Structures are given as structure tokens and as C-alpha cells.
């Protein structure tokens, strides 16, 4: 197992290095000069040359790349051109905003999705199953911004229950903070709930037809025990796989949600840095997102071995 973990870790590091290469060199192909955008059209060539030197953009690309990697290794994320601040100062606050609705959305997706999936599988062919399956399949087809628009219209404009945009830190005003997170969380998790429901239903249906489930029932176990201890445990592999995959979907969805609800998170910073060609911010954000996705997939791979000991044996 330790050998497998090390091998997977090594692969992830190689992939992450490739991400840095792709992101860095593709980003420098972006049309437009960050310094000119920062200084505006009235800037003189001398000013542009001065700031290009200040931000280190006059150096060869390979030197800039190596400096970035060396900085990453030491926790130095460089300087944002557009914000005139170190990236290390800008990112943490933005990450908190993004996590404040992404984490609840992930928890909600897993809990509601798996519960509905199990419930639906237990009632296969009945009305409840048909309704849940239909709603789940529409959920999968509905992007976060569409659900967000419909929620704003219903809960914000028509019923006036919630404010339609902005962000209030929970530490400042817990009630206002939570109220402002309700719509982003629902909008972000709606599609994911649909995916978890479909995946759990299909995995459960495969498992509950097996002989060991019949045996568990025939020896008089309670239905709840049969479902949770025997069926769900064996249906967990595809559900856990989806958990790993949904991290990427959720992070991607944050860009849309933050634009729609005007929230100052990582997604809106990413959009801003694309517009401003703010290289340092952009490359660090994409790097950390890729690292988060790889870490999630790595954890899922390790979890497989704990869920199903047969996988652990094969890896040995």
C-alpha cells in the first residue's frame, strides 16, 4: 500500500508540473500586455518599460517560469499587477469566500443526492422513483447559473425573502451571512445532487439484486441494516468516485456563481485576472485549483482501498 501511495503521489507531482508548464506558457500567449492594462492608455513608453522591469516581465520566459516555481516551493506567490499587492495576501480572503459556499454545497450534494438515490432505488418503478429520476436528470442538465437565475427570480424578486447579490462574512453578521449563502449553495449543488442521485440509484440497484443481500434479508436482518451495512457499503465505490470528480465541477461552478451573485471569491478573482492579464494571480489560481482536484482524486484512490479491501490486496 505504501508503495502504491508513493507511486500515485509521484504521478500527481509530475502532472502538477505539467500543469505549471501549460498554464505559464499558454498564459503568456494571451493577447494584451498586463502593464499597459494596469497603467492605462496614457502611460508613456518609459513608464511601461519601468514597470515591466519592476514586475520582472522583461526577463526571458524560462527565467520567469523558474522563478515562479522556486517561489511556489518557498510559499512566495509573487506580486499581483492589477491589485498592487502580493498574491499571498489576496488569495486567503478570496479562498474563505469561495469555501463558504462550496463546502456546504459539497456536503449538501453528497447527503441529499445519496439519500434520494437510495430512496429512489428502494422504490424502483413507483411514482416516487419516477419523479426523483426525472428531477435528477433535469438537475444534471441545468447549469449552476440557470438555477441561480431562477432562484433569484423566485426567492429574491418575487418573494423578496433573500437579497439577490453580495457577500457578508458570517463572522460579521451570522444571519445576514447565512441568508446570502442560501441561493449560491442551492444553485451550485442542484446539478451535483442530480448526479449523486443518479449514481447512487444505479449503484444501489446493481447491489440489491445480489445474492448476499437476499441472504442478509433471509437471516432476518432489519431492512435498515441490510441497506446501510450491506448494500450501501458495496455501492460506495462509484459514489466515492463521483465525489472526487465533483470537486472539479464545483470549483468550475464557483466562477459562474460568483459572477451571478457578485461574490468576492476565487472565481471572480480568476475572471478579473483574465481580463487584466494579471499573470501572477492567474497562474497561481489555476495551479492551486489543479492541485485541489489532484488531491481530491488522490484521496479517492486511497479511500478505495479502505472501502473495498480487495482493491488493497490487488495493489499489494
Amino acid at each position: 500500500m505504501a508503495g502504491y501511495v508513493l507511486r500515485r503521489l509521484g504521478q500527481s507531482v509530475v502532472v502538477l508540473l505539467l500543469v505549471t508548464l501549460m498554464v505559464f506558457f499558454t498564459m503568456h500567449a494571451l493577447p494584451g500586455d498586463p502593464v499597459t492594462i494596469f497603467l492605462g492608455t496614457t502611460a508613456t513608453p518609459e513608464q511601461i518599460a519601468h514597470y515591466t522591469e519592476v514586475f520582472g516581465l522583461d526577463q526571458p520566459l524560462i527565467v520567469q517560469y523558474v522563478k515562479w516555481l522556486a517561489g511556489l516551493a518557498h510559499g512566495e506567490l509573487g506580486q499581483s499587477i492589477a491589485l498592487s499587492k502580493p498574491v499571498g495576501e489576496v488569495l486567503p480572503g478570496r479562498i474563505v469566500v469561495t469555501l463558504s459556499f462550496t463546502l456546504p454545497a459539497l456536503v449538501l450534494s453528497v447527503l441529499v443526492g445519496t439519500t434520494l438515490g437510495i430512496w429512489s432505488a428502494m422504490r424502483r418503478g413507483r411514482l416516487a422513483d419516477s419523479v426523483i429520476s426525472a428531477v435528477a436528470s433535469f438537475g444534471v442538465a441545468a447549469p449552476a447559473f440557470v438555477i441561480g437565475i431562477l432562484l433569484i427570480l423566485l426567492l429574491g424578486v418575487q418573494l423578496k425573502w433573500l437579497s439577490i447579490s453580495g457577500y457578508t462574512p458570517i463572522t460579521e453578521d451570522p444571519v445576514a451571512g447565512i441568508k446570502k449563502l442560501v441561493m449560491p449553495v442551492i444553485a451550485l449543488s442542484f446539478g451535483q445532487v442530480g448526479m449523486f442521485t443518479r449514481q447512487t440509484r444505479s449503484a444501489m440497484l446493481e447491489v440489491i439484486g445480489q445474492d448476499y443481500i437476499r441472504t442478509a434479508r433471509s437471516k432476518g436482518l432489519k431492512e435498515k441494516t441490510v441497506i446501510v451495512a450491506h448494500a450501501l457499503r458495496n455501492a460506495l465505490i462509484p459514489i466515492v468516485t463521483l465525489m472526487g470528480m465533483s470537486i472539479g465541477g464545483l470549483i468550475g461552478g464557483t466562477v459562474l456563481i460568483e459572477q451571478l451573485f457578485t461574490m468576492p471569491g476565487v472565481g471572480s478573482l480568476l475572471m478579473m485576472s483574465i481580463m487584466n492579464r494579471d499573470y501572477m494571480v492567474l497562474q497561481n489560481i489555476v495551479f492551486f485549483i489543479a492541485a485541489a482536484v489532484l488531491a481530491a482524486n488522490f484521496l479517492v484512490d486511497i479511500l478505495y482501498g479502505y472501502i473495498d479491501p480487495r482493491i488493497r490486496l490487488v495493489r499489494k
Partner: protein
Amino acid sequence: MTVLSDAKPAATPNLTKLRVKGFFSRVPVIIGSVIILTVVVFAVAAPLIAPYDPAKQDVVARLQPMSAEHWFGTDGLGRDVLSRLIFGSRTSLLVGLFSTLVAGCFGMAIGLIAGFVGKWVDSIMMRVMDALMSIPIIILALFLGAVLGRGLGNIILCLGIVMTPSYARVTRGQVLSVKQLDYVTAARVSGGTGLKTVVHHIFPNCLAPNMVLATMNLGVAILVEAALSFLGMGIAEPTPSWGGMVSQGKDVLTTAPTMAVAASLFIVITVWAFNVVGDAVRDLLDPRLRGAL
């Protein structure tokens, strides 16, 4: 002497007919197929069906509500929303179909080379695919879209690149299993070149799973294009696109909600139809892939 009976042998069931019957046996698949057909008709015959020119502005009739004249009202420039939705189906379908085609071509080429050549070529190619897959699809599309620009061709290329890794992975897996088979070994032993073996013996075996993936990815491509247009990084105005219409509708949600709602529903219903039909195509072509793709 044996006397042959005049009786006709029992008719063997027509497999294609049975498959088609099975395909359309589920109500959602029928509904999905009708929706796709409608969207295709909208896209092909948009100038004939749309009641107005989608670019024609009428500042006097700005942000009109639903009426007999303008079924879904008008936008901020007085353009007919229904006409723009009908023309928007062209954008969605064009981007969906061609980006899937681009991704299929790139992905299959990479998968064939990686799987057949193997060794370090395989390792490098697949690690690059892993790197692409580690960046969420919308973020990668945003990033590449900013580099390539906002034209229709650029958006198609951008989404094509974004979706390439899944085709490369499926093709590589297929190549690895097929190249072990006896007939491929026989083809090589009988003097066939590597390229000839790949083109004539391995490539045809990779088509079915990639077709299944392509059908299922059409909905994803339409969704990502809508998301890019919503963020203002997709198809540029004045070309109508559903995502762009949701974005414009968002700004006038309190006064004229029809545009955002109608465009949202067009996106959801179309993507749902492609997903449902994609699932059915997967079950039809290869039931073993159920849940795997």
C-alpha cells in the same frame, strides 16, 4: 427422394428493427428525440421560422413583456427574444457538433498513438491529458478562450481541446485491449506496417465507444458554451447565444424576466434531451459501458 417442404422457414427477427423499437420504447427518449429534432429544425430553418430579424433593433419597443406580437417579449435593444432564441439554437448546435468532432479527432489520434506506440510516448501523452483533466472544464475553457479569442471557430477549437482528454483515454484503453488480439498480431506478422495495422485493424474497433462518448458529450459542449457566453467570454454580440441571453436577461431580471427564463429553459431542455438520447445511444451501442462513461 427427399421432398422439401413448401413451408417457409420461421421469419428471423430483424435485429435492427428490434433495436430501433427498443431505443424508442422509453417515453423520455421519445420526448428527447422530438426536442432534438425541433432544435435541429430551428437551427436549419431559422430564417424561415423566426418571426423577426434577430439583429433588428427597435428602441421604442425595449423590454416588452410577452405578447401576441413578441411571444417571449423583447430585449434591452428591442430585439425579438423568440427570434434570437431560434437563431441561438444555431450557435449551440454548431458549437456542440463541431467541438465534439474536433475533440473526437484530436482525442482518437492521441489515444491511437499513445496506445499503439506505448513506452515513453504513451507516458508523456497521457500525463499531458491528465494535466488537462486536472483543470475544471469551465476554467480551462475560460483560459483557452481568452487566448484564442471569441469567434465561433475559436470557441469550437477551445471546447474541442477541453474535451479531448476523455476521447484520448477511451481510445487508448481500446487500443491496448485490441492490440493484444490474434488478428492484430497476424496482421503485423504478415508484413503490415504499424500505420496500416492501426488504420485498418485497430481504428475501426475504437469507433463505437467514441461515438457513444460523442453523443453523451454533446450536452456538455452546449452547457460549456452557454457558460462561457454567460461569463462574456463566449460568442460575441450581435450573434445570438442562449448563455449570452441569460447574462443579458440577468441585468433586467426585475423589469423583464422573460428573456432570462426563456433562454434558461431552452438550455436546460436541450441539454436534457441530448443527455437522455445520449444515454439511450450508449445502451444501444454498448450496454457494457452503462455507468462507465
